[in-house]
């Protein structure tokens, strides 16, 4: 969804093969695999809510030094994740839930940007 709604984010995935259309993106196995990686990593944050900064310390260095990702992209992905949760959980995704998750994605984005230099 990130790659479709904010197509400029595709700049980081030149080696993913065919991203030429929404259909291509949705069917792309590298996109699926990467989505799994990213969400699994989010799961780590949820397991370590008291220490998210430490959890993402190494990943932050990686995103700065190797991947060269503008931290704004973490915010964009966070917003997309919220929409995906809303689509799946419907009414269970209450305003209180949205508030908590919006804060969480903000904290994760901040943690990922923290080691940038």
């Amino acid at each position, binding site marked *: *969804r990130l790659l479709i709604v904010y197509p400029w984010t595709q700049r980081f995935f030149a080696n993913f093969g065919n991203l030429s259309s929404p259909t291509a993106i949705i069917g792309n196995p590298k996109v699926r695999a990467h989505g799994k990686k990213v969400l699994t990593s989010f799961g780590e944050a949820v397991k370590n809510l008291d220490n998210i900064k430490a959890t993402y310390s190494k990943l932050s260095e990686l995103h700065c030094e190797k991947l060269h990702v503008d931290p704004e992209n973490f915010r964009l992905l966070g917003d997309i994740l919220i929409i995906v949760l809303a689509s799946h959980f419907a009414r269970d995704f209450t305003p209180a839930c*949205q508030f908590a998750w919006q804060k969480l994605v903000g904290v994760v984005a901040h943690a990922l940007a923290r080691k940038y230099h």
Partner: protein
Amino acid sequence: MVLSGNDKTNVKGVFSKIGGHAEEYGAEALDRMFATYPQTKTYFPHFDVSPGSAQVKAHGKKVASALVEAANHIDDIATALSKLSDLHAQKLRVDPVNFKLLGQCFLVVVAIHNPSVLTPEVHASLDKFLCAVASVLTAKYR
């Protein structure tokens, strides 16, 4: 950013599916915005901003009507929302960042009530549309 022919079709499609629920969606988007981004309440010191308040419901209706109006005149949103643009520039002066926040909440509400409508492509079009509306409303700020 420019709305393509596809974007316009997608946006009109969403609003036709939403139909008469637009007003409820407007109110729910505001409720969620106040809950998720408490700083947005600073623009409504004169309101009861508790969830489901009558004032929020009425205001949600206003917001939704403006979005519907923009969708119905999608080829010239600037003209359709010209008065609202003046109002926001001269009187309301809501900081531009807040339109994104309301837009996000509106997308959440559409996703909750119509997950099958909000495909990735339609999501992209609707997001672009909401950005275009925000641009028009802040165009005369300076």
